[in-house]
């Protein structure tokens, strides 16, 4: 069953009701690139805090930590640039491109849908609803555990990175972060905790997508590949 707004929109688009173009190409590209970048960031970041076992021999023969940190820094630049591009696309793209930045928190109807979704995930509802974009519950989670957290990770991450940069633009932009959080060591701690939360959310995100794909009879995973949402039934 489609939600009220979605039904209206589907009607407005006439005969496209059972197959709609939701996610445009730049958004899809960003989504999959971002998943790889985030995985690289999490693994390299984990290893920076807890390095692999020590290597013997001459120091000049190895560059393990150097490489791990290089991967982390390159990936973090890609993540940051991707996020900036994604913010641009929120303005340039269709309405589904704006969803994760602006959840309609002042819309009572939307909160009812969130509650409905909560009941659905708690097995209290037996017929899932279908949504054109993100389902309201997913959107809320996405907003807190991706959008907000991603900017938090950027701030703490570049705050730490700025420590190695002298008086450049990096320091001017992000140098205030570490002192605000109580010093470099604390900032490391928060950054690492953010990684764990984000990775936990990523696992949840994959699980929920697969589950909805199976149960709610409309496409999710292929939608993020092709852009088209198919409504079976």
């Amino acid at each position, binding site marked *: 069953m489609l939600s009220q707004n979605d039904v209206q929109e589907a009607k407005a688009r006439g005969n496209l009701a059972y197959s709609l173009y939701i996610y445009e190409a730049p958004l899809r590209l960003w989504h999959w690139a971002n998943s790889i970048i985030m995985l690289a960031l999490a693994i390299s970041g984990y290893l920076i805090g807890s390095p692999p076992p020590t290597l013997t021999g001459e120091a000049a023969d190895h560059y393990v930590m150097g490489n791990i940190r290089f991967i982390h820094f390159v990936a973090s630049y890609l993540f940051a640039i991707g996020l900036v591009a994604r913010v641009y696309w929120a303005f340039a793209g269709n309405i589904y491109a704006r969803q994760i930045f602006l959840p309609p928190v002042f819309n009572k109807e939307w909160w009812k849908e969130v509650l409905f979704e909560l009941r659905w*995930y708690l097995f209290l509802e037996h017929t899932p609803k279908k949504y054109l974009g993100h389902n309201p519950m997913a959107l809320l989670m996405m907003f807190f555990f991706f959008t907000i957290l991603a900017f938090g990770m950027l701030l703490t991450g570049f705050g730490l990175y700025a420590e190695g940069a002298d008086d450049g633009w990096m320091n001017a932009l992000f140098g205030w972060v570490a002192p605000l959080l109580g010093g470099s060591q604390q900032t490391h701690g928060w950054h690492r905790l953010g990684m764990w939360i984000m990775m936990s959310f990523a696992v949840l995100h994959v699980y929920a997508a697969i589950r909805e794909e199976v149960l709610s009879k409309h496409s999710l995973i292929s939608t993020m590949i092709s852009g088209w949402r198919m409504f079976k039934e």
Partner: protein
Amino acid sequence: MSETFYEVLRRQGITRRSFLKFCSLTAASLGLSAAAMPKIAQALETRPRTPVLWLHGLECTCCSESFIRSAHPLTRDVVLSMLSLDYDDTLMAAAGHQAEAIIEMVKEKYRGNYIVAVEGNPPLNEGGMFCIQGGRPFVEKLKETCADAKAVIAWGSCASYGCVQAARPNPTRATPIRKVIADKPIVCVPGCPPIAEVMTGVVTYMLTFDRIPALDRQGRPKMFYGQRIHDKCYRRGHFDAGQFVEAWDDESAKKGFCLYKMGCKGPTTYNACSSMRWNGGVSWPVQSGHGCLGCSEDGFWDKGSFYDRVTGIHQFGIEANADVIGGAIAIGTGAAIAAHAAVTALDSLRRRAGNKDAREGIEA
């Protein structure tokens, strides 16, 4: 007319040659070019010397102990002779009312033109009764002395951040200088203690150039606190290579590998230890085989173990670190997903069976 720095030196029998040597050494240690040397010499020859009043609050005197061991003897003589002429209750000859009278005298004679160096900090609880000097709370003496000062130097982590006496739960409410003195420029020289040459360097800079050095966001002189221990550590090559000490006294420790995994706080600590070293350049903590404790960082006593790389996040009340909390979240999420998936599967099986029953009911 008060005498100049140079006159004080000559009176103490220091030759002009030694004086010029001191000037060029000072220029070098402050990271200035050779052109700065004549400027320093000229300033010391012509400018009336600025008196320094050295106060002691809640502290352990490790800053003074470090200071009097400054490697370059001339630096020590020069700066100490200046200080002892004025006020430092640990080092001066005068005592009692005589000593306290000096503060009043300097305040009147050099109004707005003297420097206050504070070692330790004032406790504010119980009206400041946890630190009494001359029969009254130290915080009063501090405020009065700083009222007419040109600038204030906060010696050590105590004066800069609070250090051990301000560690949780901070029963005396020991408070860093910058939270008590609001209307004066404050130079923070953290460390427990700070490096002797850093201390004399800061004083010399302020006395010779008559201005405070360039400071970073936390009020520390950039020339000494601009980089982390890790950035200049001689074991950095082993860090980049991925060669770590895994346990005390293992083969890696004997080979002098990086102490990162042993909880070295070098990567998060701003200080000059790895470049200037200690005791006249003899050694420093990492060189002696132990990780940096991060003693020049804000609240270093409250940041978890000195021997853990990933340390506690205090906001969670217990000594839990990011990996413990994060790991719990990850495992919790995984378990919740597994349980949820199982219930989902059971639920759909049940409903499929229910549908089948219903259909059979219709057929029957």
